[in-house]
């Protein structure tokens, strides 16, 4: 495992850059645990102060220190992304492995459902949920809803690998040794699809955080919980750009871009790791 990481860092510039960016963001998010202020309160410091040695990221029109605000927002957004990614990975693993290994009508039925989920445009659906739940839509509920829509692509990917594993020698050995189907899937096939799970985990986090930002900017989430999206919502709400509080917009945008590029580079380079042919070409073999 460590050797893999060492190789990835050495031969894959994208992985190295992505790792650095994500590490910076994660450390920044973890700082929020040492935050000296309660980030849900407003008018704690002088409003509209530009970035200075005292307030590194400046303060906003609601009298909040943007450094700690941003740090908490980043933690909340990342947590949200991790919850969605974990839940949807579980669904896609279950569907993908079962569909690929069992085959037959189970496969056809699961893939039929899969294709329906792929075709549904997610954003209008989420807005619909906000419309009926209104203030009952907290971030955990939102995470559940998004997880229910975030699995189909990756389930198909896992299924394609599981299809190949089904006819490998060791699977037959396991069947003849009397292993039950769930046990084969968990103990024999799961390790083979783990790289895919990791790579799609990052991609899924990107997807879910991006959607959360969009919903929050429109005001369609719990706007009192600081996330990257709600920060932009409040900045727009106070017309930060027109008033000239540019740092209130610029800092969240820059941090989002850094987070997204970092996660994306990790996802892409891991994808490449899964496909050994392109890895060999990169190493000059």
């Amino acid at each position: 495992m460590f050797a893999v990481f060492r190789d990835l860092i050495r031969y894959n510039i994208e992985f190295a850059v992505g790792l650095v960016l994500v590490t910076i963001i994660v450390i920044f998010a973890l700082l929020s645990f040492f935050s000296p202020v309660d980030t849900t309160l407003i008018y704690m410091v002088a409003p509209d102060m530009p970035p200075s040695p005292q307030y590194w990221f400046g303060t906003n029109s609601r009298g909040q220190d943007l450094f700690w605000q941003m740090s908490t927002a980043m933690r909340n957004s990342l947590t949200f992304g991790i919850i969605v990614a974990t839940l949807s990975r579980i669904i896609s693993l279950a569907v993908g492995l079962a569909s690929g290994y069992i085959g037959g009508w189970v496969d056809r039925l699961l893939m039929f459902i899969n294709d329906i989920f792929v075709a549904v445009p997610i954003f209008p659906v989420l807005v619909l949920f906000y419309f009926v739940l209104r203030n009952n839509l907290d971030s955990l509920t939102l995470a559940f809803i998004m997880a229910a829509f975030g699995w189909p692509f990756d389930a198909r990917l896992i299924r394609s690998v599981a299809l190949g594993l089904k006819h490998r020698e060791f699977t037959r050995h396991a069947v003849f040794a009397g292993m039950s189907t769930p046990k084969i899937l968990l103990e024999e096939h799961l390790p083979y699809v783990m790289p895919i799970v990791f790579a799609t985990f990052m991609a899924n986090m990107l997807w879910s955080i991006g959607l959360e930002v969009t919903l929050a900017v429109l005001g369609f989430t719990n706007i009192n919980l600081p996330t990257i999206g709600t920060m932009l919502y409040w900045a727009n709400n106070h017309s930060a750009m027109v008033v000239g509080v540019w740092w209130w917009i610029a800092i969240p945008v820059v941090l989002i871009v850094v987070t997204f590029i970092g996660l994306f580079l990790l996802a892409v380079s891991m994808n490449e790791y899964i496909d050994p042919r392109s890895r060999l070409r990169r190493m000059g073999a």
Partner: protein
Amino acid sequence: MQGYLWFIGKRALQLLAVIFFGVSATFLVTHLSPISPVESALGRMTARSNSAPEAVQAMREALTAMYGVDEPILQQYLNFWVRLVQGDLGPSMIAFPTPAMTLVMRALPWTVGLLTSSIIINFLIGNLLGALAGYNQNSRLLKGFGVVAMGLQPIPQYIVAFILLIIFGFLWPVLPISGGFSMDVQMGWTWQFAGSVILHSILPAASLVLVGFGGWFLGMRALVSNVVTEDYVTYAELAGVRRNTIVGGYVIRNALVPQLTALAMTLGGVFSGTVIVEQVFNYPGLGSLLIDAVGGGDFSLVLAVGTVSVTAVAVAIFIIDLLHPLLDPRVRAE
């Protein structure tokens, strides 16, 4: 030919299933929620007026009759389908008494236009450049494109649109940032109107293209760099087939088949992106309509936008699937 018919039949069945489940889900989400459409509409209507209690009661009865919420849920569901087939989802609240369907149909061409043009631009540019980058792996220019695509592709649609809005709205105001066409232009088949529409669509389309093209570029590059190692490409090169023929006739054509599948699969996501971009640039499409409807608590309109978007995306995916046999003769022969 029989294989093609079989393929189409399977896809058509899937289309119907998607529409059925999508529309049913839309209905269920809106009708099983604890919030009554009658009470929320009533709350909005009486908020800034001074109505007699009898009048409020009369309004409540009228609204209950209009939404039909006093009937059992199964009956409501059946009524919903019957009326949906007739294209009637009741009057909208934010533009009373215009039927919700009329508003949706007014917004639909804008969204379809924006979506189609940006998808075509993305698909062509992204795949062509991606194929060239996969074939000429040492070209510096194309490597540069790869870096740009990687940097732009993961950024959320909203952020890209927002940055464009700030650049072209505040810092360098040269392009219109709001609406579908200028207020002083008459709607009609004139050059002036068409020019205004194109000018207003530049920024929304640009934000869709900037985010979308990277995915096609990276995907096509990866596919092509796998295809060029195939034996038939080496054979064609050894046999002295012209490079353009190899790239156009063998490499791109083979790599394009999975890309077409990808187009069908990502269409739902692209539609979501369009909805968001429309909201940023106040473009008169389905997205802005949906946000307005949510803001105004308009039940019929939200339901109408939801069902029409699910149906439209499903139909578009079906149409893309129909194109498959043109590229891939195996689908016809199977």
